[in-house]
């Protein structure tokens, strides 16, 4: 169990490329967050909890879906911690762990459409497939 949590944590850090140790706990990310009131766990708490390995509450929290990915926190963090990327990585972990491939390679041809940029399909494929 311990190991799984640690693996998850590393996976989150790897996906996001975030080093939470850089955080100096100023709270500017949460101060700037437009979804603050909607969230149970706020950006600075994400950083702190990932750093300390408290992943379970985060993974179960609705907060991960409340982040608008507006990147205000990324823009304003004085230490370049990039909390939004971390939240995104937690969200992705949840999606991936749910097991299902939301988008299969076989599905793609059917979805091809002149209106949809190919890049979008590609990134969706990357994001929603194991």
């Amino acid at each position: 169990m311990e190991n799984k949590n640690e693996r998850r944590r590393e996976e989150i850090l790897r996906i996001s490329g975030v080093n939470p140790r850089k955080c100096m706990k100023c709270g500017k990310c949460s101060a700037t967050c437009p979804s603050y009131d909607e969230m149970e766990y706020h950006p600075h708490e994400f950083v702190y909890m990932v750093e300390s390995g408290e992943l379970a509450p985060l993974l179960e929290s609705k907060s991960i879906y409340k982040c608008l990915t507006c990147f205000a926190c990324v823009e304003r963090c004085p230490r370049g911690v990039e909390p939004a990327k971390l939240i995104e990585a937690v969200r992705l972990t949840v999606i991936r762990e749910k097991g299902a491939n939301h988008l299969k390679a076989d599905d793609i041809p059917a979805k091809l459409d002149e209106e949809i940029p190919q890049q979008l399909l590609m990134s969706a494929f990357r994001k929603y497939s194991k």
Partner: protein
Amino acid sequence: MQRIGVFVCHCGTNIAGTVDVVAVAEALKNEPGVVHSAEYQYMCSQAGQDLIKAAIKEHNLSGIVVCSCSPRMHEATFRKTAAAAGLNPYMVEIANIREQCSWIHKDMASGTEKAIILGKAAIAKVNLNTPLTPGESPVTKRALVIGGGIAGIQTALDIADAGFPVDIVETKPTIGGKMAQLDKTFPTLDCAACILTPKMVDVAQNEKIRIFSYSEVVDVRGFVGNFDVTIKKRARYVKEDICTGCGLCTEKCPQKKVPNEFNLGMDNRRAIYIPFAQAVPKVATIDADYCTMLKTGKCGVCAKVCTAGAIDYEAKDEFIEEKYGAVVVATGFNPISMDKFDEFAYNQSKDVITSLEFERLTNAAGPTAGKLLRPSDGEHPHTIVFVQCVGSRCEACAEKGKEYCSKICCMYTAKHAMLTRDKYPDTDVYVFYIDVRTPGKAFDEFYRRAVEEYGVHYIKGMVGKVSPEGNKLKVQASDLIAGKQLHIDADLVVLAAAIEPDKSARGLATMLTASMDTNDFFTEAHPKLRPVESPTAGVFLSGTCQGPKDIPETVSQAGAAASKVIGLLCKDKLTGNPCVAQSDEMMCNGCSSCERVCPYGAITYSDKEFRMPDRTTKIRRVASVNPAVCQGCGACTVACPSGAMDLNGFKNNQIMAEVDAICKM
């Protein structure tokens, strides 16, 4: 051929315990050049030294090798011993057979063998030693202080107090610097002007001190004790010696719309101005960018009203050349630009101000005559938000802020908050902080007073966003302790902007060949042991040009720098380290490689005429080393492909002789 004496020390049993000192002395007897070899209990003792002195005289020794402890321990001792016996002190070499032999090897056989090899290496080296004489250079007994803020003022006063002439060069029309703009000072709440202006007057009245205001240093040549400095005295169009500082011109000048930099642009001044009432020198200056007379040739009001006849529209920049023995850099700081911090709406609302602007707003001589009024509408603000660390400790955004802590913000914000609550108890004051840092005498007590006695709301958390709405500033912030997001409708937001070294410092560092860190703060020669000296000899650091610091710290550093300068100027001659680089002009190619690696700017080039063996002459560019500046690192000797550059005391052939001796099994 040298006549070398070898002296092997037992150091009690420290060496003799694992090294057979008698065998070492015996083995080294047969080395080339050795004419005398002896061992003794304690070579560094008086008796031991006497033994060496006697041997030098008896055997007419030209060099000695002492096999003993580390040269870092007793090299100086034995050099003095040699000198006392009439031998050049640089004819002494130490073989380190204690720290690097007897203390680390347990086995007598291998310890003895190694000690013999180390002795042979030292003998091989001393065989190639030549007597060295430290170079001497005279000292110009005058100091230059660049920057006329509190750091420069204090340094100049202290140096002048010791009886040496000092010149202060200040780019502004007056000395005083940032401190002159402050209202009160923490933690005692003295009025800044009350403690600064008497010092400024002292400077003005001190016969030893000359002030070059409205001036800058444009060229520095030379080296410690002998700097040749060119100072550009910008034209101020007012004859300094005639102007009485009556200020009539500054009242009559018709050009009224000039932003007043002393009040940070919060009000206006005239095109001819005296920055503030206590300015030193108290003379007017015409701002050529705004003066109608200078721009169009029509006006001349100031000349008409000036009864002293001090106005001179034809004035030109003057260049003054002066010699100095020492240079003190006291160029100070500036708050960084807030332009890039959109989230705090500094450029959108007049009611978002920096702390320095806040100082002016609360200063009796400021734009509001000391009343705390909102810049936008002149109303009294009821809710004030102070934001800490704006641009400080900011690693991610190098183009926006600074990675370091600006050090002074915690304290001055506490001061601002406290004074505001003191004068206007009806005001709500919030301070958003990341950490409160108060190391300093009576500092934490001061901060706690602000919280406990004055009821300032200190909130752990950062402000994320300030948005002007109507006549309010909507402040959105974190309260990390309460775990909530705060929304405050503020009337005034004060940003504790990070401070950075003055922009002029970089060019100055290049001229002085003084090094800077990546933030453009001057580097000290040693961060702990030589904090007020730059690595470049004769250049000293005072105040915030070296790093963020508050007034007490600045003043103490200024005094320290002054004492270093005084120590230097007291000498009639400077004696250098003779182990300096030397260029063989016959072999020098003039390629400048050495010049480029020299950290001290000790190498210069000149064209010289050489007589060639075939009787023709050839002009070549060759390097020469200034022994007073060179510190003897040897970087140039390796950069030089022809081997023209060599280092006295550590010559190529000496090091190679050591290598050979060590490898000779």
